[in-house]
Each structure stands twice: as C-alpha cells, then as structure tokens.
C-alpha cells in the first residue's frame, strides 16, 4: 500500500515537472521578446534538473543548475542586452512555407516518439551503473571516478577543445590594430 502511494507521488511529481518543461520550452520558441525567451529557458533548465533528480542523478542536476541555468543563461542574457533587438520585437510573426514544412516534420517526429513510447519498441542496454549502485557509491564519486580513469583521455582532449574555443572567440572579437601605413 505504502509503495503504491510513493509510486503515485513520484508519478505526480514527474507529471508536474514534465508539463512545466514542455510549457516552458514552447514559450521559449514562441515568445518574441528575447529576454522573456531567455527567462523561460531558465525555467526549462530548472525543470530538466528536476528530471535528473528523479533519475537519481543529483550531481548532474546540480551541475545543470549551476552551469546552464546559472552561467550560460547569464551569458545569453548579456549578449541579448548588448545587441539591438528592437527590429525583432517590432516584426510580426510571418507565415513562411519553410515554417509550415518544418512544423509538419516536427509533428511527424513527435508522433513517431509517441508511437515508440506507447508500443515500447525502444529497448536499450542497461549499463553497469544502475541507480542502486550509484546511490550506494555516491553520485559525485561515481562521476569523478570514471572521469579520471576510464575517460581520462577524452577529458584531457576536452581541455584542448576549450582552448580552441577560447582562442577562436578572442581572435574573432579582438579589435584589430591598424596594420599598414
């Protein structure tokens, strides 16, 4: 009996988070004011973090909040404020054939996902890190351990990737000194 109540509660929480997630995502792409879009996006990120918690991945949930909802959204808002988006605000939503075609395929893909979920044809493999194992070990420890042993090489390569990204951003935005004359 008690288990059933827990299940029901979990299901209700999931339903709430999922609906918030979907609603916020729709608001992100349908809103015309970029600042509002960004704020709705924060809500999407927070709701996604909630989904991670429900999947027993507290560490990823926290990282999601700190990195995405915190740092990255901050940057996006900065960029939005620095750019002049008045024109965008005043423009009307126009009907475009590309939009109609895109919408058609989006609906098609969504029906595909519904079909797959309802018939449960998608069966993946279960990895070695089950929720029980992760809970017993501790989230941060599990992530840290594989990151610095199994995935040491990709981890180091990622640092090069970040260097390339930073160098690229600097070189593209740097004021170029007058060279000739």
């Amino acid at each position: 009996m008690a288990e059933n109540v827990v299940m029901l509660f979990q299901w209700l929480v999931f339903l709430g988070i999922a609906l918030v997630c979907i609603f916020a995502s729709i608001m992100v792409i349908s809103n015309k004011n970029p600042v509002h879009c960004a704020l709705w996006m924060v809500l999407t990120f927070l709701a996604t973090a909630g989904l991670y918690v429900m999947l027993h991945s507290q560490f990823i949930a926290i990282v999601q909040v700190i990195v995405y909802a915190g740092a990255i959204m901050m940057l996006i808002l900065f960029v939005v404020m620095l750019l002049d988006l008045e024109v965008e605000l005043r423009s009307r939503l126009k009907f475009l054939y590309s939009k109609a075609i895109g919408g058609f395929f989006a609906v098609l893909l969504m029906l595909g996902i519904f079909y797959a979920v309802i018939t449960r044809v998608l069966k993946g493999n279960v990895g070695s890190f089950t929720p029980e194992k992760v809970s017993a070990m501790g989230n941060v420890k599990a992530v840290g351990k594989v990151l610095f042993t199994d995935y040491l090489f990709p981890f180091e390569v990622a640092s090069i990737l970040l260097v390339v990204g930073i160098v690229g951003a600097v070189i593209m935005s740097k004021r170029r000194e007058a060279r000739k004359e």
Partner: protein
Amino acid sequence: MGITVPQINFSIIAPELIISAFALVVLLLGVFFPRTGKNDYLGYVSLVGIVVAFLYTFPIMGKSQYAFNNMIVADGFGVFFKVIFLIIAFLTVLISIGYARRVDIDFGEYYALIMFATLGMMLMAAGTSLITIFLGLETMSIAIYVLAGLMRGDRKSIESALKYFLLGAFATGFLLYGMALIYGSTGTIILEEIAAYIKSKPELLRSPMIIMGIALLTIGFGFKVATVPFHMWTPDVYEGAPTSITAFMATGVKAAGFAGFIRVFFSALGAFQPDWIAIMWLLAVATMTVGNVVAIAQTNIKRMLAYSSIAHAGYILVAFVAGNELGTASILFYLLVYAFMNIGAFTVVILLGKRGEENVLISDYAGIGFKYPLLGASMTIFMLSMAGIPPLGGFMGKFYIFSAAVKAEYYWLAVIGVLNSAISVYYYLRVTVFMYFREPEREITGLTFSPASVVAVIISVWGVLYMGIFPSDILALAQRSITGLL
C-alpha cells in the same frame, strides 16, 4: 576504494602530443613576440612541429595497440590517416606563408588553429570510442569555423564562417544524437564493444533505435564530407574562406570526415552493412552527379573547385559502398592523391592573386599558360589529374575505386561513376583551355611568388606524378593499413 589509473602509453599519442605542444608554442610566440607584418617565422616553427610529429608517427606504425582504456588506438588505419593529415597540414602552412601576410591574417593564432585542427583530425582517425571521435571532430570544426572567418574585413569571409558555424553546429547535433542512440541501445561507446554487443544480440539488427542512430550518424558525417543532400554550405564557405583554409577544408576536413565515417561504420556497425548500402548508393550517385553537373556552370574557380570537391566525395562513397578490401584501401589512396592535387590547384589560385586583387574568376586565367609557363603546366597537371587522365595520380585513384565497385558487383555504380568522370573532364579542361587558348582581357601584372608556395606546388606535382606512375607501393601500404579493420 582505490582508483586504478588507466595504462598510460604516451608513445601511442606522441604525434598528437607534439602537435598540441607546438600549437601552444606558436600561440604564445605570436603573443609575446609579435613582429607585425613579419610573422612568417611562426609558419616555419609550425612546419618544424609538423615534421617532428611526422617522424614520431612512423614508430607507432603496425603496432595496433590500444591506450587509455580503449579510447585511442595506434593501428595502420590511424597511422595512414595521420600521415595524410600531416602532409595536408604541412602543405597548408607552406602555402599560408606569404598568403597569410597578403590578406593580413598572419598572426600566431592562425598557425596554432591549423595545428589544433590537425590534432582534431588525427583524433578522429585514431579514436576507437565515439567520444574520442566526437571530441576530435569538434576540435577540428571549431578551429575551422574560426579560420574561415579570419578575414574580418571581408564580408564573404564573415558569411562563410557564420554559415559554416551555424550549419556545422546543427550537423554536430545530428551526429551527437546518433551517437547517443547507439550508446543507448548498446550501452557502450567503444567501437569494438558495440560490434560485439550487436553480434551477441541479433534482434538489435531490427531495433528502430539503433537504425535511427545510424541514420543520424550518416547525416552528421555526410555533412562534414559534403555529400549531396547535405552539401549546400560547401560553395559559399569555400568561396569566402581564405584560400589556404579552403584548401585545408577541401582536403583535411574531408579526409577526417571519411576517417571517422569508415572507422565507425566498419568497425562498430559492420553488421548493418546491408542496411546502409542502399542509402550510400543513392548518396554516392547524387553526390557525383550534382557536384559534376553544377561545377560546369561556375565562373569562379574557388566555387568550381568546391563543386568538384563534392563530386570527389561522391567517388569516394562509391568505394565506401563497395565495402571490400580494395574499396577501403582505394579510399585511403584517393584521399592522399586528392590532397596533393587539390592543394596544388588552390596554391596556383593563391599564386595568381596579389594584395587587393585575388583573380579568382576562371576568365582571369586567360593567357596564363604562356605568361607563366611553369605555373600553367602545374595547373594543367592538377586539372588533368582531377579529371582522371592517365598517367596521373587521380586516374589511378579512380581506377582503383571503380574496380573495387566492379569487384563487389556494383556495375551500375561503376558505370555512373565513369560517366560522371567524363562530365568532369569538361570543366577541368576548360581551365586549361582558358590558360592556353584565350587572349587575356586584362593584364595580370606585378605578381610576387612566395617561395614557400612554389615549394608547395613542386611537392604537389611530385605527389600527383609519383602516385600516378608508381601507384602500387602506396596502394600496398594502404592495403596493409586496413588489415584488422574490416
């Protein structure tokens, strides 16, 4: 609970380490010792780095050793591609010395980014897990996005970088989603373990999840190598980017894309070969045909070479469909010879320009053959090689590819390929006709040939001739490289 450190074997990743170290050194040299307008020395430092990495590539040949928990391997396939990438990087840096100064992009970051991109390509060829391949691809792509837009005073360069960046990021999304679906259905990202898992569970062959993943991977890689439904970006990006970077993109990025493509599809998803062959067949035919037919109408030589590079991706896909040993070896052979002839052609394009006057229209080539006989002769060799005229390298490459297709009994594919090759003769020869048989409408004067670029042309001519006249050595090397892959 202790942490077991993975076995670390630096000798296997020595070329990668050397390239990264030199890239960082060049980056710092450019910041601390800027010699405005005289930054050519950075190019020479990069060349030294590439040569050292090249020397360290050979000791790992034929070892077939895994390192870092199966994240990367030093096998013949990876080494062969590393050699291709290092040759491409060497030639690209060589043609940049002089050209980069002309278009005011000769700072340390330029050479450093070329080397970082090379590092990414090497990781794509040597990586044996989806994550290594993905990180290599991203390192390469981000460096190239920036390189394409370095000429910030030039609207076309900016357009090129922005287009490539937006579409490339989108394609990366497809690729990553595909990898995620494959990981989700097999529970591992190591290519060989994926293959083993699929073998142990035959019902996976009909799993929509993994087939969806394969489709998305095809789109992602297809974008990088510019196959036809995903080729729209190619002409604009190739036209707008600095010419040296266009040469780098057309050869290096394409070779790296195919390296990742072959590695993932043959070593992890080999069981799905019957499924993907039909799609690849269509892609190959569409890519060859559209590339060649549209190239005929081009008036700008950079755009023409862009469409020609699409067509060449189509020929390589023919060998990909064939899927046999000769086919895969011929891909390696073709990518090497393609690197020589394409970089050579772009070098001629660079040499015919000067500050503020790039002369990229095909009509600008009128009369060049008599005015600069050696340059004209080199360009003729590159064009004939791309068209597939014996005894040049391009002919042997196509010969091996089409014989692989015939051997695998894809007769129609071989026929369509040969017909396409015949179409391509028209637009390649047109450049030659302009060079020798047309009166120039206006004089091109005051060209200063950078010695480094001339060396690059000489190396390319040598490469095309050598691979055309003595192809068997290189083909044998390519065949040895792919043992264990199929």
